[in-house]
């Protein structure tokens, strides 16, 4: 038995293309994030905070209720997150933007808008500010229409939230939008276990590969082979994720929280989801190995994208418009769990994430097992 473990282990870790996707690629991506964001923003998962972002505010002539509310909102942010410059006309503002003395222009209109000249950390912060305003405004409009009597409570709750975050940040840490990328990255890396799972699944199915056929006609029980494969895959990928987490926390300086037990639990379930996802994809009948790897890329990168891997605020946008996607997207749930550990210390939300991850792990494990347990096939 042990020698079967040993050889399966060797075979998987020597599969360089798959190990690249499962281990090296997330590390490279993390390094690129770090280099492109600079280290300043990342330190904010600790106790430091960022500089205020210089902006101009341009008002339209006729001001509506919405515009006034937005203007008030910006005024409150002045000195906290924003540094509103003394620029009143649009042409001056555009000139300042071109000269890069400001990072963006907020337009105070019925529908508030933002103009930026490039992509970058400050521009991302300004986008987040606008998104945050729109999100809250939409929520209050909804409450005003459906439950007007609760509007004051909601406003008070928002004030309470503001006070809390302004004076003592939840979990003792300030929020940097860039950190979202790293949470999404670790979540994506967990799903990348699918690349290992696909290969293992293909190697075990007599109707898919000659290797699968050869292994299926041996006197070693199929369940034993599955157990060995799955155990080795979980071990390797769990270790991959631990290496990544170590790199992200120790080298890149992004906090994933202080609760090592919780981190290991989330990493374990994330690894299991990734590997089982791959095994399930590997069982897909009659599509080529290349196609399966393509499906794998899709099923890892797309959830990663929805969890904020390419655009940090994506998860929040989805939360605003279709929160169900964030509940069923494993990358989003994993990212949320890391978020809870690293930023919020919100046990209720963390527990919800763990429950969803446990259900996903169980479901995917069942699907994967049902897919590969077959011993006799209709066609080969």
């Amino acid at each position: 038995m042990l020698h079967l473990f040993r050889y399966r282990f060797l075979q998987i870790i020597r599969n360089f293309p798959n190990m690249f996707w499962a281990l090296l690629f997330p590390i490279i991506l993390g390094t690129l994030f770090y280099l492109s964001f600079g280290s300043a923003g990342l330190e904010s998962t600790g106790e430091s905070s960022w500089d205020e972002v210089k902006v101009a505010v341009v008002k339209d002539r006729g001001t509506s209720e919405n515009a006034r509310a937005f203007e008030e909102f910006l005024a409150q942010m002045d000195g906290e997150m924003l540094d509103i410059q003394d620029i009143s006309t649009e042409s001056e503002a555009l000139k300042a933007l071109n000269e890069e003395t400001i990072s963006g222009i907020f337009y105070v209109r019925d529908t508030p808008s933002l103009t930026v000249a490039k992509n970058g950390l400050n521009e991302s912060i300004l986008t987040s500010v606008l998104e945050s305003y729109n999100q809250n405004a939409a929520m209050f409009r909804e409450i005003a229409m459906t439950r007007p009597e609760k509007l004051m409570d909601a406003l008070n709750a928002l004030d309470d939230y503001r006070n809390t975050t302004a004076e003592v940040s939840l979990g003792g840490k300030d929020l940097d939008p860039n950190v979202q990328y790293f949470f999404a990255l670790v979540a994506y890396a967990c799903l990348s276990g699918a690349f290992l799972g696909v290969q293992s699944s293909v190697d075990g199915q007599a109707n898919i590969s000659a290797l699968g056929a050869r292994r299926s006609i041996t006197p070693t029980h199929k369940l034993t082979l599955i157990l060995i494969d799955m155990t080795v895959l979980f071990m390797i990928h769990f270790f991959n994720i631990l290496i990544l987490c170590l790199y992200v926390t120790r080298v890149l300086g992004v906090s994933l929280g202080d609760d090592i037990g919780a981190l290991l639990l989330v990493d374990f379930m994330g690894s299991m989801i990734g590997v089982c996802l791959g095994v399930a994809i590997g069982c897909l009948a009659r599509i080529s190995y290349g196609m399966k790897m393509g499906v794998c890329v899709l099923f890892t990168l797309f959830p990663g994208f929805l969890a904020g891997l390419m655009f940090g605020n994506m998860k929040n946008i989805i939360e605003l418009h279709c929160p169900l996607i964030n509940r069923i997207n494993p990358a989003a749930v994993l990212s949320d769990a890391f978020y809870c550990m690293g930023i919020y210390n919100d046990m209720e939300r963390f527990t919800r994430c763990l429950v969803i991850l446990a259900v996903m792990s169980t479901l995917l494990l069942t699907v994967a097992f049902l897919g590969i347990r077959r011993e006799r096939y209709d066609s080969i």
Partner: protein
Amino acid sequence: MQSTNIIQIENLVKRYQNLVALDHLNLEIQEGEIFGLLGPNGSGKTTAINCLLALLKYDKGTITIFGEPMTPGSYDIKRQIGVVMQNVAVFEQMTVRENIDYFCGLYIRDKEKRRQLVDEAIAFTGLEDFTKMRPKKLSGGLLRRLNIACGIVHKPRLIILDEPTVAVDPQSRNKILEGIVELNRQGSTIIYTSHYMEEVEQICTRIAIIDHGHVLATGTTEELKQMIKTGETITIEAIALDEELLSGIRNLPHVFDVSYEEQTLKIRLGAARHNLVRVLNYLQEKDVRFGRVFSELPTLNDVFLEITGKELRD
């Protein structure tokens, strides 16, 4: 000594939707044989092997190996079978030795015994100089030999080789065929599927000709050749033969088929003495000038041609 059947296939039917891949296939294979399953591509050879190994579901029929019904859970039977697949089935990431050791480990738990068997398999397939190489670095012939080593390392009682010489150079092919005969000499029963009739003719002690999923004929090479009318085929290079002359040849004793294409005259005759002399005398009488002359005894291809009406190589 009476031979015993170690494989018995009765009325095996396998359908793929409307296509009948195996049509009431019956086979009996005896211990100690090198049994050839000969048929063109798509005739049902590999399907029969996959059913035999309990990898494929089948619609009807029974399969017994070593007197026991063969099912996916027949681990005691599987322990005694070695299979060499048509496609090379090894791990690219492991060396030659590691691959052989891995597959041996699926049959043999004892470490010492395994080491001895792996050494023997490496020596048997002549892979001593390549044990630390990965499969990607091996030539086609060496790769096939590794494939065979992985299939026979546990010294099985029954070895199934499914077209093991496809895409192999002649030198490696001969080595593989010699190896198969040696395995049989050491006590293994062999099932050998191929569409190369020369190979089957060279090594098999008994042959089943299979087409459209059922057995057309079974017997030794000699028995199969005796089943057909052709006793000899004479081929002559000759220029400008007319219909009158060809008609004359058709009327010669024992001649039953004459064809003339691209200045090559092909005459099939029944088994009889002096066939060639009679034909050449006739051509000389008619003052026909001819070039090279070949006389061939019937081959398995002739057997296949007569039984099915088509060339085996089609």
